[in-house]
């Protein structure tokens, strides 16, 4: 192709209106010619400096930058494109790194379910790459977890069993993880995006000087270049981004619990267990756990940190009916909230109040029962991941923010949902309480 080398026109960069997400300053950072200035988060291209290299176009995650050409330039370009040069793909990464690993997170010998969920998606990735799926287990007296790991799909297990790992501590687990990863060089490492997993993953990735993508909701292999495509919500969940770690290895990702389905367990599966020993002493570890404090102190209402909040409003008609709210909250592992008017009426103490002058909450699920949704309440809970509203008035403003709105009488719907939830949890229902579901 060298004989037809008419100079390929380079054009100028231009922002496509409305597409910039103000990701930061990737375009500016990518520009070798200092041709990008930032204004209120968006790039402004200095055309006299722009050389049309297209680096910013490539780097822009939102495809918000294009190159513009004069009509003459466009003609030459069209010619080029007719020649249709095939893109060559080669992996720039070190091929010594191989296999997919999943971290088995455990506390006191009990594995966190997210570990098995990760084995499920890890299986898929390993199969797509044609490599092995391995689980790595760190802890004290945790050999029995290897059996479970095989059952959930691991081909191989790496294990460090050491009393120093009895409780999670960053430094000890970091050393153990580094030992295994550096020695056996996996190309992909998956971890649960739990408090523990995020603590460890961040440290591991930094020590390994590699990329880490947190809270992935989708993982797949781009077969063309054997790269792990890691999809995660970004920008406060307003957009989804697919992220690659092109050269650094291993490619690390964390995934939140319950995002991936748990694979079926096959107790027959077996595989090799490779055990390593850790050579660090207690003196090397800068932390000492003084005490584990179990949650569930009834005196405090932890609305801010709650996973599920069941709230009642004036529509509950009186404090004597709040047992339904409490019951549902208990079944769902949540806490009791309420609207301001409930506190004003003296039905519940102020600590339960959600709203402008109460607590601002952001649980995974918020259930509003008999709450019409005055603005003062809405601003305190509308950022919840999911909202269910039960209210008699179909015009109640609460339905504007609800993901599921039930136009109905709380005194009908709540007993029904309590009964059904309890039945599905298979909790032994007490006799007197089952009768409640039948009340009109």
């Amino acid at each position: 192709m060298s004989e037809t080398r008419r100079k390929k026109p380079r054009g100028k960069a231009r922002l496509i209106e409305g597409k910039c997400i103000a990701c930061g300053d990737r375009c500016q950072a990518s520009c070798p010619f200092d041709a990008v200035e930032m204004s209120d988060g968006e790039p402004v291209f200095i055309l006299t400096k722009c050389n049309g290299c297209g680096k910013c176009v490539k780097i822009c995650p939102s495809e918000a930058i294009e190159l513009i050409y004069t009509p003459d330039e466009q003609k030459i370009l069209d010619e080029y494109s007719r020649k249709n040069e095939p893109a060559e793909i080669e992996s720039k990464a070190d091929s010594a790194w191989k296999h997919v690993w999943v971290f088995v997170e455990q506390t006191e010998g009990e594995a966190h379910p997210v570990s098995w969920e990760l084995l499920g998606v890890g299986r898929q990735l390993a199969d797509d790459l044609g490599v092995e799926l391995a689980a790595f287990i760190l802890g004290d007296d945790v050999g029995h977890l290897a059996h479970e790991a095989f059952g959930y799909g691991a081909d191989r297990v790496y294990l460090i069993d050491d009393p120093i790992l009895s409780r999670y501590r960053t430094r000890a687990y970091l050393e153990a993880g580094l030992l295994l990863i550096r020695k056996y060089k996996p190309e992909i490492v998956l971890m649960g995006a739990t408090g523990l997993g995020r603590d460890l993953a961040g440290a591991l990735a930094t020590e390994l000087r590699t990329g880490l993508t947190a809270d992935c909701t989708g993982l797949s292999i781009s077969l063309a270049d054997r790269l792990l495509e890691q999809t995660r919500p970004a920008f406060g969940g307003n957009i989804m981004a697919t992220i690659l770690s092109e050269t650094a290895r291993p490619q690390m990702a964390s995934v939140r619990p319950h995002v991936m389905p748990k694979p079926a367990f096959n107790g027959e599966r077996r595989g090799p267990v490779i055990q390593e020993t850790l050579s660090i002493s207690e003196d090397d570890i800068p932390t000492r756990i003084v005490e584990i404090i179990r949650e569930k102190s009834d005196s405090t209402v932890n609305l801010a940190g709650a996973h599920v909040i069941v709230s009642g409003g004036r529509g509950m008609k009186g404090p004597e009916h709040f047992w339904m709210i409490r019951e549902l909250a208990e079944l769902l592992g949540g806490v009791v909230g309420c609207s301001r008017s409930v506190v004003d009426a003296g039905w519940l103490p102020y600590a339960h109040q959600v709203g402008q002058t109460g607590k601002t909450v952001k649980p995974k699920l918020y259930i509003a029962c008999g709450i019409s949704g005055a603005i003062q309440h809405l601003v305190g809970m509308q950022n919840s991941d999911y909202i269910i509203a039960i209210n008699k008035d179909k015009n109640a403003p609460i339905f504007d923010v609800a993901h599921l709105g039930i136009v109905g009488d709380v005194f009908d719907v709540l007993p029904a949902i309590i009964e059904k939830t309890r039945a599905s949890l298979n909790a032994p229902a007490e006799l007197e309480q089952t009768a409640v579901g039948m009340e009109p």
Partner: protein
Amino acid sequence: MHIVVCVKMVPDTTLVQIDPKTNTLVREGVPFITNPFDTHAVEEALRLKDRYGGKVTALSMGPPAAEMVLRRALALGADEAVLLSDRAFGGADTLATSKVLSEAIRRIHENEPVDLVFCGLQTIDGDTAQVGPGVACRLGFTQLTLVDHIYEVNQRESYIEVRRKLEGAFERVQARMPALITTTREINTPRYPTVPGRLQAASRALPVWSNDVMKLERAEIGLQGSPTNVRRIFAPQREKGEIINGLNGAHLTAADCMLNKLYEWDILNAD
């Protein structure tokens, strides 16, 4: 006691909306703010200063405009502030960010030893919770994430005792200093700046460290130093709100529907 607190300027992502027609991000009118998690980190640093005396230095990496988050920290009571700003730092992922921040803290540390570094647990635009551990690792400071209470700082014996939030429990930990702490939002309620504080903060000259000052390898910072890269972005599938009838005997059907949602949203588990 010398405390460094890292703050980041972020777009207020809770105000970002998706245009339902074009499915694009509506950023108009979205202000830049101090990352909300970092406001708790600043507050905790200031509370320790109030309790034990000492000095708080605020640190931020970002564009020149990011000085606003440092001025906010100064207005609240921080003693010093340093802005790390250079095009060479731009386009950084968490690994490259932790490099610049940790090197800056190292410089501060050499000048005036640092006992504690505070970071917010995560940022609201990135949500990764990785920069804190990254900085701790690079500095070799004790890493304490998810801290929601500080019991005490023992400066003589150089340890700190904190409570970390675990799943379903808390952990009381004693840790050697220097340490890096990432704070949850429950740890405190941030104070409000006084007007004299704001005016003082606004009138101060802020040191800006560019890479001419920091002299870091290009390959380790900014876009080049970032192993991760965004291949593409797209709008998420949004679930439209659904209103169902539960009146006139339909409450049982409505309850079924709700139960299904509880499973769909993983509030209840099928297993």
